[in-house]
C-alpha cells in the first residue's frame, strides 16, 4: 500500500470492501457439500418474489394508481403484483422456519438473522401501505380500521393511513427502499459469513470428506445464496 492510498478514503474503502467480499465470495461457483436439501432454495425464491413485486409495481407506477381499475391489462399487472406479494411472504416465512431450525445465527451470523427478521418486520407496513393505496373498498376499510392502532401508538400523528398521497409515497418509494436496503445487507452478510455449517454430532469432525468431484473453495466460505 502506498503512502497515498493510506490516506485515500477511496482506496481504504475499496480495500475493505474487497477484503470482506472478494469476487469469488460475491459470486461463488461452489458451495459446501452439506447444502443438499430443498430448504435452501427458499431464500432465493423470496428474493426473486421481491424482484417480481418491484417489477410489477413499477409497471403499475408507470400508468399511475388509477390505471388498474380502468383497463384489463392494468388489472392483470395488479394481479401479478398481489400474487407476488402472497408468494413473497409464503417463501419468506418458510425460509425463516428453515433458518430457525438450522440455528443459522451460529458462528457469528447473528446479524444475518437480525437483518432477515427486520426485513420481515418492515415488509409488513410496506404491504399495509400498499393495501391502503388500492383506492377501492378494501383500502377504505383497512385504512379506517388500522388507523386506530396507529393513533393509539401516536404513529397516526404523522403517518395517516387515510391520506392516499402519503401512503402511496411510502408504498412506492420509501418503504421498498428500506426493504431493498435490508435485503442487500442481508444477502451481503450471507455472502461474507457463508451458509451456517451443520451442528456437529460428537466425533463427526468438520463434516464430509472431500470427494473427487468436489472442489475446495478458493479463500474461505464460498457458498450459495440461501
Amino acid at each position, binding site marked *: 500500500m502506498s503512502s497515498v492510498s493510506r490516506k485515500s478514503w477511496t482506496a481504504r474503502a475499496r480495500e475493505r470492501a474487497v477484503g470482506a467480499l472478494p469476487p469469488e465470495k460475491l*459470486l461463488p461457483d461452489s458451495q459446501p457439500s*452439506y447444502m443438499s436439501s430443498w430448504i435452501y*432454495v427458499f431464500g432465493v425464491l423470496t428474493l426473486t418474489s421481491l424482484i417480481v413485486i418491484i417489477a410489477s409495481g413499477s409497471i403499475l407506477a408507470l400508468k399511475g394508481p388509477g390505471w388498474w381499475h380502468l383497463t384489463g391489462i392494468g388489472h392483470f399487472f395488479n394481479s401479478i403484483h398481489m400474487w407476488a406479494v402472497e408468494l413473497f411472504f409464503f417463501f419468506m416465512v418458510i425460509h425463516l422456519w428453515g433458518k430457525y431450525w438450522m440455528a443459522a445465527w451460529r458462528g457469528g451470523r447473528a446479524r444475518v438473522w437480525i437483518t432477515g427478521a427486520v426485513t420481515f418486520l418492515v415488509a409488513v407496513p410496506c*404491504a399495509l401501505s400498499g393495501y391502503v393505496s388500492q383506492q377501492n373498498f378494501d383500502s377504505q376499510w383497512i385504512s379506517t380500521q388500522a388507523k386506530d392502532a396507529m393513533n393509539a401508538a401516536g404513529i397516526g400523528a404523522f403517518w395517516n393511513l387515510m*391520506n392516499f398521497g402519503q401512503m402511496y409515497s411510502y408504498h412506492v418509494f420509501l418503504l421498498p427502499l428500506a426493504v431493498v436496503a435490508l435485503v442487500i445487507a442481508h444477502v451481503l452478510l450471507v455472502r461474507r459469513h457463508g451458509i451456517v455449517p451443520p*451442528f456437529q*454430532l460428537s466425533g463427526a469432525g468438520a463434516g464430509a470428506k472431500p470427494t473427487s468431484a468436489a472442489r475446495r473453495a478458493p479463500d474461505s466460505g464460498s457458498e450459495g445464496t440461501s
Partner: protein
Amino acid sequence: MSHEPDDSRAADSSEAVGRAGRRRERRRADEAAREWKGAYRPYDILREATIALGVVLGLALVLTILFSSPDLKPSTVQTWSRSDPVDFVTTATTELDDSSITGSYGPPYNHASDGQNIWFIHLAKWFGVSHPINTAQDFVLAPLRSITGQPALQTAVSTYEAAPANTQTTWTSAYEKALGNASAKPGGSVSVKPGNYGPLPTMMGSLLTFAQSGGLDGALLTSKQFYQTDYTKPLMFMSDGGVLVNRAMQQHLLGTQWGMMNETGSYPGQVWLWLYTFWYQIKPFSTSTNADILVLAVMGVLSLAFVLIPFIPGVRDVPRRIPVYKLIWRDHYRSAPPAGTSAGHTEEA
C-alpha cells in the same frame, strides 16, 4: 457439626463449574461454526437465481390467470346517502353534536378524550391533535354554508349556530331519537314524526340532497386546497355510519371475524397477521378500551424477541434440542458418520 452448608456450597460450586463448562462448550461449538473447512462442490448461483425467477414468475402468472385479483368499488358519501338515507342523516346529526365516533375520538382529531393509554404511557395524547377535525363544522355546517341560492337553508343554519348549546343539544337528541324510527321516502328523503327539532329537518334535508347529488364528497375532499390526496374527512364521516361496516361484515373483514387477515371475496389475505389479530380475540384485549395500544405493546415485545432470538437462552437452544436439523443435514451426517459415539449425542451449538 452440620454438613448442610458444606454440601450446598459444594452443590453450588459444581453447578457453577457445569454452567461455565457449558458456556465454554457453546463458545467452542460457535467458533467451529464460523467457517466450513470441509468439502465443496460446483454450484451455479446465477443459474439458480434465474431458475427461481422463472418459477416465481410462472407461479404469479398461473395464479393471475386462474384467480385474477379483487377490486370492490369504493363507497362514496353519495352512494351511502342514496342507499341508506336514514343512516346518513342519523350519522350527520351525531356529527353535529359531537356524539359520533369521530366527534368523541380524541387525538389526533380533537380533544374530546385522551385517547388510549398503557399504564402511564399516553402516546396518543403526547403526540397531540395533528389532524384536527371539528365534526360539526367540517361535516355539516361548512358544507351547508357552501350551498348557494337557498336562503331558507342559510337562515336555518344561522338559527342553529345562534342557539345556546343546551338548546342545540335538545334539538339533536330529540332528532336522533326520532330517527331511530324514521323511514326513507321513495324520493330518497327521510321522514320523522313531528317533534321539537328546531332547524334540523331543514338542515339535514339539504345536507342529504347535497350528499345524494355527489356535492358532499367533493366538499369534504377539497376543503383545504384544490389538489387533494387526503381522504381523512370523507372516510371518517362514512366510518361513523354503517355503510363501510355493513359491507365489511359481508366480506368477513370485521375484527371479530379475524378480518385483519382477510381479503375481500374468497381470496387469500394477509396470513402473516395471524398473531396480531389473535390477541384481539381473547381477554383482556377483547374487552379493553385500550386494546390497540395493548396489542401493539405485546407485538412490539414479541417482534423485538424475534429479532434477538440469537441472544435469548432457551429459544435459541430449541433447534439443537428438537433435532429437525438431523433431517435437513441427513445426507451430510450419512457421509461422515460419528466415530465411536452413540446416536443422538450432540454437542452444544
